[in-house]
C-alpha cells in the first residue's frame, strides 16, 4: 500500500485517471445507447472500437505519416483519422445490426441468444483481424497486417510534452486533447439526443416502442441510428487511443470493452451522462488503485468495483434512463 504516493500526487493521479476515463466513456456511450433502446448488451461493441484503431493505422500508413509531423499536418492527419475511424466503426456497428441482430429481433429471440450471438461476432472479428486479414493482406499492407496477432505500432502524431503545471500536477498536451475531444464529442451527442428531431425519436423508442411506432417513428431507422452513433463514438475513441498509446492489436477490444461496459453500468446503463460520469470515475479509481497496490492489479480493481456497484446500486450512479428524464 502506497498511501504517501497517492496522497502526495493526488492531483497528478486524478488527471491521469480523467484522461484514461475519457476514452472509456466514449466507448461506453455505444453500450449505453444500444442498451437504452434495445435492452441488449452489444458485446461486439469492443470490436467496433478495434476496427476503428485498425482503420486509423491503415490510413496513417497509406499517407506515409512519419513521427512528429509539423503542427498543420498533424491536425490534418488527426481530422482525417477521425473521419476514417468513425466511418469504419460506424459501418461495422451497422453491419453487425443488419447481419446478426435484425434476424434475431424478427424471431423475438430471448436476450441470452442475442448475447451469445454478440460473443460469437466478437470472436469472428478478433480472428478476422488476427488471422485472416494478415494472411490475405499481409503482402499489401505489411505494416498493418504483418505477423498474425502481433502488436502493431503507429507513428507518433503529437510529441507528448507538459503544457502547464498546477502545484505538482503536470498536464500534458495529449491528456488535454483526449479529455477535451472526448467531452466535446459527448456534448454533441447529448445535444443530438436531447434537442434534435432524430434524438426525440430515439428517446421515444427507448421509452415505449409501440407508442413510438404509433406516433410514426420508424423503429428500424432509430435502431440503425443508435448503432451508427455508438460506432462513431467508438471511432473517435479509437483515434484518441491511437494518438495517445500509438499501438493496436486484434485483441485490444476485449479488456477495453469490458471496462467501458463497466463504466456504462457504473453511471447507469442507458444514461448518456451516466456513461461520462462512469467512465471518468472508473478511470480515476483504476489509477488510484494501481498506485495503492501495483499496476498489474488494475483490471482486478475495475471488476471488483463493478461487482460492488451492482450489489449496492444495480441501476448505477445516475440511474438507467435514455427515454425518461433529460439525460
Amino acid at each position, binding site marked *: 500500500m502506497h498511501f504517501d504516493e497517492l496522497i502526495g500526487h493526488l492531483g497528478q493521479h486524478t488527471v491521469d485517471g480523467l484522461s484514461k476515463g475519457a476514452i472509456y466513456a466514449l466507448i461506453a456511450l455505444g453500450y449505453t445507447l444500444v442498451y437504452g433502446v434495445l435492452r*441488449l*448488451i452489444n458485446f461486439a461493441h469492443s470490436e467496433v472500437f478495434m476496427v476503428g484503431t485498425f482503420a486509423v493505422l491503415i490510413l496513417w500508413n497509406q499517407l506515409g505519416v512519419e513521427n512528429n509531423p509539423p503542427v498543420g499536418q498533424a491536425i490534418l492527419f488527426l481530422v482525417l483519422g477521425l473521419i476514417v475511424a468513425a466511418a469504419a466503426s460506424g459501418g461495422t456497428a451497422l453491419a453487425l445490426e443488419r447481419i*446478426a441482430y435484425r*434476424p*434475431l*429481433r*424478427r*424471431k*423475438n*429471440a*430471448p*436476450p*441470452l*441468444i442475442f*448475447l*451469445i*450471438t454478440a*460473443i*460469437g*461476432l*466478437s*470472436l*469472428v472479428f*478478433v*480472428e*478476422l483481424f488476427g*488471422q*485472416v486479414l494478415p494472411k490475405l493482406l499481409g503482402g499489401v499492407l505489411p505494416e498493418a497486417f504483418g505477423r*498474425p496477432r502481433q502488436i502493431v505500432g503507429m507513428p507518433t502524431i503529437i510529441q507528448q510534452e507538459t503544457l502547464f503545471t498546477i502545484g505538482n500536477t503536470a498536464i500534458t498536451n495529449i491528456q488535454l486533447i483526449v479529455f477535451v475531444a472526448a467531452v466535446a464529442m459527448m456534448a454533441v451527442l447529448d445535444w443530438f439526443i436531447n434537442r434534435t428531431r432524430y434524438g426525440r425519436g430515439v428517446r421515444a423508442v427507448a421509452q415505449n*416502442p*409501440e407508442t413510438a*411506432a404509433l406516433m410514426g417513428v420508424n423503429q428500424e431507422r432509430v435502431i440503425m441510428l443508435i448503432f451508427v452513433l455508438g460506432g462513431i463514438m467508438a471511432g473517435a475513441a479509437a483515434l484518441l487511443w491511437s494518438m495517445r498509446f500509438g499501438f493496436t492489436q486484434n485483441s485490444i477490444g*476485449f*479488456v477495453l470493452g*469490458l471496462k467501458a*461496459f*463497466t463504466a456504462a*453500468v457504473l453511471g447507469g446503463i442507458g444514461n448518456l451522462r451516466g456513461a461520462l460520469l462512469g467512465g471518468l470515475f472508473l478511470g480515476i479509481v483504476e489509477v488510484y488503485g494501481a498506485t495503492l497496490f*501495483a499496476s*498489474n*492489479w488494475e*483490471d*482486478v480493481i*475495475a*471488476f*471488483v468495483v*463493478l*461487482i460492488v456497484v*451492482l*450489489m449496492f446500486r*444495480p441501476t448505477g450512479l445516475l440511474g438507467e434512463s435514455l427515454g425518461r428524464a433529460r439525460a
Partner: protein
Amino acid sequence: MIDKIRSADRRRVSLLTTVGDRWRALTKWQQALGLAAFVAFLYYLPLLGVPGLTWLRTDSIEGGNNWAGVLFVCAIYVLVAIGLNVVVGLAGLLDLGYIGFFAIGAYSVALFGSVNSPVVKWIQQEFNLPPTWAVTWAICLFIAIVLTMISGVLLGWPTLRLRGDYLAIVTLGFGEIIRIVARNATGLTNGPVGISAIPGPEGAPSPDNKVFGLIDAKPWYWLAITFVLIMVFLVRRLEHSRVGRAWLAVREDEDAAAVMGVYPFKFKLWAFAIGAALGGLSGFLFGSRNAFIDPTQFNANLSILFVAMVVVGGSGNMIGVSLGAVLLAYLPERFRDFADYRWLVFGLAMVLVMILRPQGLVPSRRRARELKDRAAEAEEAPAHV
C-alpha cells in the same frame, strides 16, 4: 445457400427425432443392453483399430499416442459441458467465467499436491514435515471440489440477484480476476512461472509410475471417462428430481416459480455451486494430467469456448452438450491444418447456430418448444418487427 442449409438441417432433425422415438420405444432391457454396449465402446475407444473407423484417430505417426490424449481432452471438456449445462441450460444463468472454476480446480491440486508449490512449502515449514511431503491426490480431489463449490457460492451470493445479462458480464470479470490473481499473487501461486510436479493418482510424476505416466494417455482417458459416466448419472438423477424441475421453472419464469413456492435464489445458488464443482473436477483432472500449470492456460477465450460447447450442442440437453464438447475439442485436432482458424470457426458457428437454430444441434425437447412459442408470438404480432 441459406435455404439449402435450412432444408438439410430439417432432414437432420427429423432423423434425430426418429432415432430418439425408436430409442424410447425400446424395452427396458434393450435400452440397458444398448447403454452397456455404448459404455464398453467408450472404454475401448483409445485402442480404436476397427477398419473403417481408424480415420477418426488423430495421431501424427501411425499407431501413435496422440489419439488417447485428444480423447482425454474431449472427456474433460464433456465434464465441463455437463457442469456448465446445469448452470446455462437448466437454470438459465449465462456464466461466462466458468474458466475461473476450472482454474481453481487445477490450482487446488497444484497448490496442495505439488512439492513445488508455496502452500505446501509453507505447511512443511510450519509443521516440520519432510520436504517430500504433500497432500495426497485423493484428498486434493476433495479439496478441489470443496473449494470450487465455495467459490461458486461466493460468486453467486452477490451476483445472482442481478439480471441475466449483467450476470454474464460479472462472471466474465470473475474469470479474469481469477487469472490475474493467479498471475500476480506470486507468493501463493508462483505467478507466471507456474507450478510443476503436480501429482496424479500414483503420486508426483516420476519414471516409476506404472499406470499414470506422462507419456501414455490411455489410463488418464479411462480415469476421466469414469468420472464423466458417474457425473452423467448423478446429474441425470438431479435433473429429474425436484431440484431439476425447480431449475426449469426458474429458467422459464422466475416470478411464476416464486409464486409456486420455489425460492429462485436458493435454486440458482445450488445450480451455481454444482456447476462450479463439476468445472473444478474437470480442472483438477486437467492439472494432474498436465503435471504443470501456469496462468496463461486459463484465459477468457477458453471460457467462451466452454459456452460455445453448450450452446452449439443444444443447451439443456446433456447428450447435446456432450456432443458439442466432443466436436469442439476433437475437430481442431483432427483438422490440424486449419487449427489457426479454429476460433474463427467457433465464432461463426456460434452466430450461425444462434440465427438459424437457437436450440442447438441436439435440442432439448422442452427448450425447442419454448423457442417455437416465442417465434409464433412474433408472427402473431408483426407490429414489433
